[in-house]
């Protein structure tokens, strides 16, 4: 089985390195096909590993020593167990699809080869992240995906906004990474190891405050990667990257790494339910918070990004409440339909010549029939309509909140589900229905390449069946590792009322969205100039606040540190000391006027000074000695 593990892990790296060799040369489809092929190999290996794991085995290999000093011993070790194999499947599936899709999407781009190199490197980092058997190995992947995210967001590096967003994403993630490092330090100094199995076996022996702090620090790390409030602003800005990147990194895989970390570290979080509750509350808050921003946004990709953020909130609610398998399940289902949604958006963007404002589109269902079907399917899945994937995973989270008697969380999540349905279909309605507003801008849309649509097909299928078909086998497999808790509402009446109620609520929201946006778009000036609309439209002014409170003062402070402190104080002091010495020489060199007479006077003055010193010191010496006697 080890060979499959290594294939799954390293074939993306091989793909990345080979395509990197062509990085600076002219575009060639060979690179795209090679990278996709190698990823497919990785996918197949993962699939084989999945069957192996489903049979109840796990694979654990230690490739080589990485860092060993003192008592610290960190190998490159990889583990394929129920949790990581789920992630591997998600990552390889979505990334294979995205790779193939990108061959079409990026076909007109100069940096075609470079793009595949980065994209495969990302997949490799993500595989390291999920397969590592220790916290530092996870951290390698963690930083690796951050690097690739930086490279890919800033892929069109001539665009100021893209490079800015790339740097923002990297730096914000670094803030969280610091917390994660601290968490790792705490684990090491308290348990002497960073291996998952050792840490999880001994975690309960630690005193409560330490476990709590470890949990908090690790979660702050997860917050950065999963863009939880208050480190969320980078995700929306990250939409500057090419759309396949958004689909793969900023919807399906990287952003869910935080959820994966919490799920992976479930033995730690099981010890500290209070922190879990805090995580769940934050998750619910973010779910709502992001959904509200998505309601009014006018940027297609940003709407989907906020929707991702909102869904990540759901996952954290589940993970925080101890329903780790539910969180992981929603992670998987979400990856499929959200990637699909993004790829659909990519088709639309291509057709619209990179226009992002849905208010300038409309009526696209005639010219882009298949894209319309796929995106509607994805939206239905996202809204959680039976029997698509979202219903099984998202409604399960609602049930978890209900069963765990967190009714406030439940209410928030329910409301958010409504909003989700509304903004998803607002988008679909604006793009595909109504007047062909884009004609005013002289754009004539066309459907994407057929093979791109075929590439999207697996995701569509998964979005439909993932919930229905996979739930039971998935549950059986993953609960061998994660706590097996079935969240059933035992009262049948309540269960049915809730399920049907939720479905009705969501359908109503969809209907309202269609009613409002599917025919003609009426712009209600009064609402738009209102406080709430502006607040939401400006993302609660948070980016602005960050800019004013952190970025600008930091730059000012840096300039101050350089120009005032470094040059005016520190360096000036040094130069001042040198100057004093120099000036003393400059002033006293008149003493050396060559006049013997004055030199003699100076000599006598010197003699007198020496005599004074002699008297003073001897007197002092005697005084001390006399006292001693």
């Amino acid at each position: 089985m080890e060979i499959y593990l290594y294939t799954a892990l390293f074939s993306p790296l091989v793909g990345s390195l080979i395509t990197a060799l062509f990085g600076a040369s002219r575009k060639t489809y060979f690179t795209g096909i090679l990278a996709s092929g190698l990823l497919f190999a990785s996918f197949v290996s993962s699939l084989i590993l999945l069957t192996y794991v489903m049979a109840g085995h796990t694979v654990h290999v230690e490739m080589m020593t990485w860092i060993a000093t003192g008592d610290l011993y960190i190998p490159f070790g990889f583990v394929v167990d129920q949790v990581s194999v789920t992630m591997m499947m998600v990552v390889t599936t979505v990334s294979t699809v995205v790779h193939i899709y990108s061959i079409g999407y990026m076909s007109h781009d100069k940096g075609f080869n470079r793009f595949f190199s980065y994209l495969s490197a990302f997949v490799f980092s993500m595989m390291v992240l999920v397969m590592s058997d220790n916290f530092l190995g996870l951290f390698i992947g963690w930083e690796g995906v951050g690097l690739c995210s930086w490279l890919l967001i800033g892929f069109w590096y001539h665009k100021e906004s893209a490079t800015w967003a790339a740097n923002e994403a990297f730096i914000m993630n670094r803030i969280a990474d610091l917390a994660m490092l601290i968490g790792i330090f705490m684990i090491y100094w308290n348990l002497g190891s960073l291996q998952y199995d050792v840490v999880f076996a001994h975690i309960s022996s630690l005193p409560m405050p330490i476990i709590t702090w470890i949990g908090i620090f690790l979660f702050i790390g997860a917050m950065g990667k999963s863009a939880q409030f208050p480190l969320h602003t980078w995700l929306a800005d990250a939409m500057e990257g090419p759309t396949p990147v958004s689909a793969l990194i900023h919807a399906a895989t990287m952003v869910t790494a935080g959820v994966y970390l919490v799920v992976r570290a479930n033995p730690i979080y099981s010890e500290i339910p209070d922190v879990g509750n805090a995580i769940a509350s934050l998750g619910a808050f973010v779910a709502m918070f992001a959904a509200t921003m998505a309601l009014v946004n006018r940027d297609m990709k940003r709407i989907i990004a906020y929707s991702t953020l909102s869904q990540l909130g759901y996952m954290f609610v589940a993970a925080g409440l101890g329903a780790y398998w539910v969180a992981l399940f929603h992670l998987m289902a979400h990856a499929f339909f959200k990637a699909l949604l993004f790829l659909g958006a990519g088709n639309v963007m291509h057709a619209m010549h990179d226009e992002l404002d849905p208010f300038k589109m409309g009526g696209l269902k005639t010219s882009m029939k298949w894209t319309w079907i796929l995106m509607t399917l994805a939206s239905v899945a996202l809204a959680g309509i039976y029997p698509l994937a979202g219903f099984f995973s998202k409604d399960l989270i609602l049930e978890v909140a209900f069963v765990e008697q967190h009714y406030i969380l439940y209410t928030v999540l329910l409301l958010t589900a409504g909003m989700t349905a509304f903004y998803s279909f607002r988008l679909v309605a604006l793009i595909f229905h109504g007047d062909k507003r884009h004609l005013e801008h002289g754009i004539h849309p066309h459907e994407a390449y057929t093979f791109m649509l075929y590439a999207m097909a697996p995701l569509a299928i998964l979005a439909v069946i993932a919930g229905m078909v996979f739930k039971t086998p998935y549950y059986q497999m993953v609960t061998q590792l994660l706590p097996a808790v079935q969240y059933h509402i035992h009262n049948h009446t309540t269960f049915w009322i809730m399920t049907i109620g939720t479905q009705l609520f969501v359908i109503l929201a969809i209907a309202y969205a269609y009613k409002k946006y599917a025919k003609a778009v009426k712009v209600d000036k009064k609402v738009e100039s209102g406080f709430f609309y502006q607040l939401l439209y400006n993302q609660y002014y948070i980016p602005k606040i960050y800019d004013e409170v952190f970025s600008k003062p930091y730059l000012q402070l840096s300039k101050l540190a350089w120009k005032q402190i470094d040059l005016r104080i520190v360096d000036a002091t040094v130069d001042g000391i040198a100057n004093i010495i120099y000036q003393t020489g400059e002033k006293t060199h008149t003493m050396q006027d060559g006049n013997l007479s004055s030199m003699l006077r100076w000599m006598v003055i010197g003699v007198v000074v020496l005599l004074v010193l002699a008297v003073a010191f001897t007197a002092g010496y005697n005084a001390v000695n006399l006292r001693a006697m």
Partner: protein
Amino acid sequence: MELTLNHYLVLSAVLFAIGLIGVMRRKNLLMLFFATEILLNAVNVGMAAISHYRGDYTGQMFAFFIIAIAASEVAVGLGLLIVWYKRTGKIDLDQMTSMRG
């Protein structure tokens, strides 16, 4: 009234001070040499006195060598002085400023 070493040392100090005043006061090089002779003699008195009161010849020896050095100094110094006088016609210290820093 018994004479002690201190009497001689005080005398030596006083003579030395006179010499110092001369050294500082004189601008004429020849007169300056006189003042330096006074300085050397002042020290010699002290040396001889110490030698006597400590019962040790070392002091006298030093005085002896000081006299020898004083003699050489006068010989060389006067020679230089004459050369200088021949060149410039003056032996005023204020004019000798070629060593200005």
